[in-house]
């Protein structure tokens, strides 16, 4: 009887626990705390945080329980991550939720979205500098795009063994936008620049909104066909929304579909952070480079905004450059709040959304370009 009891005890998580799993459980709890108590990107941090808890429950290996064991339920759910299915579905929903009218009203703001992608290429060099392999470096660099699904998509294609740390880094920095971006914005701009008011954009017609996804998918995907799984779905979602004849599909895409994909994406990415696989020196390097990528992306957007002002008659608020990263709508909201702190009547939210949506397109193009370099 004691033997049986001892055998049972030796198979419990308490007996099998490793210090790395305990650390990760603690990290999972922090994610849950940030998501629920602080409301930092709760839609992402809650499923990821809970996934970290589930993924780090110690178990007896070899019985098809863990996410890295073939034939386990979690492994099948993780299939959507490793094949890039979930990111594409998330992009479909994202397209159905995005209103490109502010971007169409002021197309020059798209350049800020392009400038913010420079963080990706600086980080590519940084990661190579620190000795990462080229495919790993490209996967780490895409964190600079500040787009979780894009980071997961590219990493799944180039360095699947790094999905866990890269996804966690990307989503963490997205959640930490209110902490990371404002100091950089304030450091790189003068008060005078932060006070610049943006003119109201012109009214955008319905035809323009319908034509945009068609033109954009053709232009972008002819340029970088490898971005098709992301941009194709993004613009399909947007067309469903704007064409006005398939409202049922658009509503489903922007609610049930994206929510389902987000749950499974977040949860399985969280599960993939098994302590023994996740806590490695490489992961620490990825976290460090991820923060560099995100900071450089923010800084390059702001600096490019200042450069544009040298040539423009009608000056733009350089804070908007920080919204060129594709963390929708977090970075636009942060730009808006930073602007409001200087002048409570200066509303930058819609302009920030224009930069944000161009950032989404830009980072997806970057992912396509980086992938195509290794095909």
């Amino acid at each position: 009887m004691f033997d049986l009891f001892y055998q049972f005890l030796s198979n419990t998580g308490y007996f099998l626990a490793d210090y790395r799993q305990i650390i990760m459980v603690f990290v999972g709890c922090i994610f849950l705390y940030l998501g629920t108590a602080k409301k930092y990107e709760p839609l992402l941090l809650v499923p990821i945080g809970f996934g970290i808890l589930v993924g780090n429950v110690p178990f007896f290996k070899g019985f098809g329980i863990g996410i890295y064991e073939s034939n386990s339920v979690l492994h099948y759910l993780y299939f959507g991550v490793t094949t890039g299915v979930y990111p594409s579905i998330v992009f479909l929903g994202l397209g159905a939720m995005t209103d490109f009218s502010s971007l169409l009203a002021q197309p020059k703001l798209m350049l800020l979205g392009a400038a913010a992608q420079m963080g990706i290429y600086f980080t590519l060099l940084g990661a190579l500098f620190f000795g990462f392999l080229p495919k790993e470096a490209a996967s780490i660099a895409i964190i600079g795009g500040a787009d979780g699904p894009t980071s997961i998509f590219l990493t799944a294609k180039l360095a699947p063994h790094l999905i866990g740390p890269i996804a966690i880094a990307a989503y963490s920095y997205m959640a930490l936008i209110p902490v990371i971006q404002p100091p950089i914005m304030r450091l790189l701009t003068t008060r005078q620049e932060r006070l610049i008011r943006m003119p109201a954009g012109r009214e955008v017609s319905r035809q323009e909104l319908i034509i945009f996804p068609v033109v954009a998918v053709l232009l972008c995907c002819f340029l970088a066909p490898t971005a098709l799984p992301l941009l194709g779905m993004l613009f399909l979602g947007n067309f469903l929304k704007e064409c006005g004849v398939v409202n049922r599909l658009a509503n489903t895409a922007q609610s049930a579909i994206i929510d389902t994909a987000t749950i499974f994406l977040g949860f399985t990415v969280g599960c993939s952070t098994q302590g023994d696989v996740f806590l490695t020196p490489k992961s620490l390097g990825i976290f460090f480079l991820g923060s560099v990528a995100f900071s450089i992306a923010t800084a390059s957007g702001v600096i490019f905004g200042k450069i544009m002002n040298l040539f423009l008659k009608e000056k733009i608020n350089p804070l908007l450059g920080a919204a060129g990263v594709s963390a929708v709508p977090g970075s636009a909201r942060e730009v808006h709040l930073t602007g409001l702190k200087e002048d409570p009547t200066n509303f930058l939210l819609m302009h920030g959304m224009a930069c944000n949506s161009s950032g989404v397109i830009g980072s997806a193009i970057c992912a396509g370009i980086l992938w195509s370099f290794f095909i």
Partner: protein
Amino acid sequence: MFGFENISANNGWAMAVVGASIVFLGLVILSFVISQVHKILKLWEQRDEFFNRYKKQAKIEETKTVKAPVSRQPRLPSAKELTSIYRPLVEQLKQPFELIQLFEISNKMDLAHPHLSIKYLQEAGVLIPQGDGTFTWDKQKAN
């Protein structure tokens, strides 16, 4: 491998420059195109007005054309026909002859546009000037 050596060995500089250029180029083109979409749409919406204005303009020009004095060239027979018409007349004259003689005969025969026809035959080299105001008939060219 670490450092700049690793960047160079893995073509990192080129990847960064080319990648950044492509994404910039792509978004610049896209922003240019979408900045023109509303102008194209405006033109498209005003197409009826544009075509009506164009039709109106064309009508006015047509009216003007009708009212204006027009110098119309009479329709002459072909070169072959002209030579065959004038050959029997020239045969009645003594070589070399003066153009006025040919003109008088053609008038008598009531031929259409004798002036223009003779001028045409002269330009075509069928009537050859002799330098003293007289002309001869070039049989070779006339054939």
